[in-house]
């Protein structure tokens, strides 16, 4: 297959395992996000793909070829560094031309290509500027143009929008998405911002402590997290401590039970329910699938209200649409009822999917 294939890559720094048996692939023309918290090994992985770091184990395939033994110079990847790494003593056009000059391309050809790229990244008129005379966003675009100059088949971007302010960041992210559709390239970009990953990528690879937690598109990762980590890292999530007793869930600190669809005989101590704020529905009256709770605080959030609730010993957040909110006279201290539209069950300590999968297989939950 063309594109990028990462196969069983492991990298240690001394005793510390920075990347732990990671495998994934990115199809030709895809834009994939490598999403994970700080120190999870994202940069290390990207550097291994580029050949800047040697893996202790595993292989890297680029456009169908095993490049593991190849030096960086021979891999022909484009790389955009988090802090741009522009050549400070060179002008914008010299920076962009660097790769082509190394390839000893014809002068005329270089000039033409540089003009094209400057046009593409909308830096017309900045040809003779030095990096220190540019804004962060402009530098980022020079870095991108420089990486694209040699027409790499693979483009790697390490937190490309990391040091930009929110608005520039959003524009640039969208612009990279568009650009990616125009030039024929397979890309991986590193981010620790879930929104960025969700907004512009075709595929999200969630990593944590050097390990792949989940691979999937935005909907998969958001709606069907495979682990407690993914659920809490991608998007906001409420964590509610509970136990499973026979055929129902008992939320810690309450006597309230959530009935399963069918009767079961399983018991589980110390589980957690993970529920997205938008999946907690606040109601005025109790029905058989609701749990009573007290409103702890109400915050205006523009298009909706954020309501803090206390359920037993747990604090949870719910997002309530405005129109629902105005129907009732809720304020701090009001007793209300909540229903969980959707939740995931994980073991509190280990944080893996076992419980949920088990219950699902048995047909107790969906």
């Amino acid at each position, binding site marked *: 297959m063309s594109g990028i294939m990462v196969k069983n890559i492991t990298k240690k720094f001394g005793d510390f395992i920075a990347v732990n048996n990671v495998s994934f692939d990115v199809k030709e023309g895809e834009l994939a996000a490598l999403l994970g918290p700080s120190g999870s090994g994202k940069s290390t992985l990207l550097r291994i793909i580029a050949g800047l770091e040697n893996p202790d184990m595993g292989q890297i395939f680029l456009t169908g070829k095993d490049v593991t033994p190849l030096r960086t*110079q021979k891999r022909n990847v484009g*790389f955009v560094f988090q802090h741009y790494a522009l050549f*400070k003593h060179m002008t914008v056009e010299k920076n962009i031309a660097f790769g082509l000059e190394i390839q000893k391309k014809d002068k005329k050809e270089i000039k033409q290509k540089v003009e094209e790229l400057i046009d593409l990244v909308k830096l017309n008129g900045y040809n003779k500027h030095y990096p220190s005379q540019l804004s962060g966003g402009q530098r980022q675009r020079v870095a991108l143009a420089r990486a694209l100059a040699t027409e790499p088949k693979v483009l790697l971007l390490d937190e490309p929008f990391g040091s930009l302010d929110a608005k520039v960041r959003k524009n640039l992210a969208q612009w990279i998405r568009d650009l990616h559709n125009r030039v024929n390239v397979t890309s991986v970009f590193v981010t620790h911002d879930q929104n960025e990953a969700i907004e512009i990528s075709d595929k999200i690879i969630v990593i944590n402590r050097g390990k792949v937690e989940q691979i999937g598109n935005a909907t998969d990762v958001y709606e069907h997290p495979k682990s407690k980590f993914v659920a809490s890292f991608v998007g906001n999530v409420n964590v509610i401590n509970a136990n499973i007793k026979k055929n129902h869930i008992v939320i810690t600190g309450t006597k309230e039970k959530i009935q399963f669809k069918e009767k079961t005989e399983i018991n589980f101590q110390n589980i957690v329910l993970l529920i997205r704020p938008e999946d907690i529905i606040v109601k005025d009256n109790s029905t058989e699938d609701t749990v009573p709770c007290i409103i702890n605080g109400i915050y205006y959030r523009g298009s909706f209200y954020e309501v803090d609730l206390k359920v037993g010993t747990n604090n949870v957040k719910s997002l309530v649409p405005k129109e629902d909110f105005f129907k009732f006279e809720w304020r701090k201290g009001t007793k209300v009822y909540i229903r969980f539209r959707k939740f995931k069950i994980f073991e509190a300590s280990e944080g893996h999917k076992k419980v949920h999968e088990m219950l699902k297989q048995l047909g107790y939950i969906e």
Partner: protein
Amino acid sequence: MENKTNCVEVVRKQKQAGKWVLISFVLLWFFVLIIFPLIGIVRETFKNAISVITSSLSSTASTHAFWLTILITFVAVVINTIFGTIMAIVFAKQNFKGKLFLESLIDLPFAVSPIVAGFMFVILFGPGGWIGSWFYSMNIKIIYALPGMIIATLFVTLPFVAKEIIPVLREFGIEQDEAALILGASQWQIFWKVTLPSIRWGLAYGVTLTIARSIGEFGAVLVVSGSIINKTQTATLRIHDQFTDLNYAGAFSAALILALISFIILNLIQYAQKRKKRI
């Protein structure tokens, strides 16, 4: 209201006064240590008739001394530039055992008195010395000859180039190198196209310091050279020699020329430093 402005005025005046006290102190200090001695040299030199000055400067011993200084300085600069740069790259970019210890050794020439350094080399390279005896058996003279003087000068100027470049390289980090690597550049190309341009002003600064020190070095060179007229006598040694011989005209005119050279170098240093900061 009026009171308040008065107060402000008083504070301002006090501040002004404080500022002027400090400035005059600095000026006084400069005069005592720098300006007066310079004026002294100029005055003493020109007390003598111009003919005396030119004849003492154009004596073979003097011209030989100046040429020798220039030669030693040139060799020291070339060697220091190459080895200093290599040393800086190794210390700034490579990691190996004992690096910290080795790096701390760079400062040694600053800590050791030049005379002591000179004696070290005499002991080592002298006819009875450890390495010197071998060279003597090969009929190569090091001490009381040019090689020894170059070695001594290299020792005292060793830190200048490396010390100037190491922080520049550290600050630049390796990201630009890596960017060049990814764009297909070889190590050799990276050095010429990326590393060298980024350190050029630091290097220029280090080189000027090396020149200044090589021209001015006295102690270490005195010990290893023996200060033999027309052979191993450099400009500073010549000045010393003339001075002790009570030939003030010769001493002061040579001193004036060295002072002029220092002045030019000082300006070069400042220029290089400014450019270094700007990049």
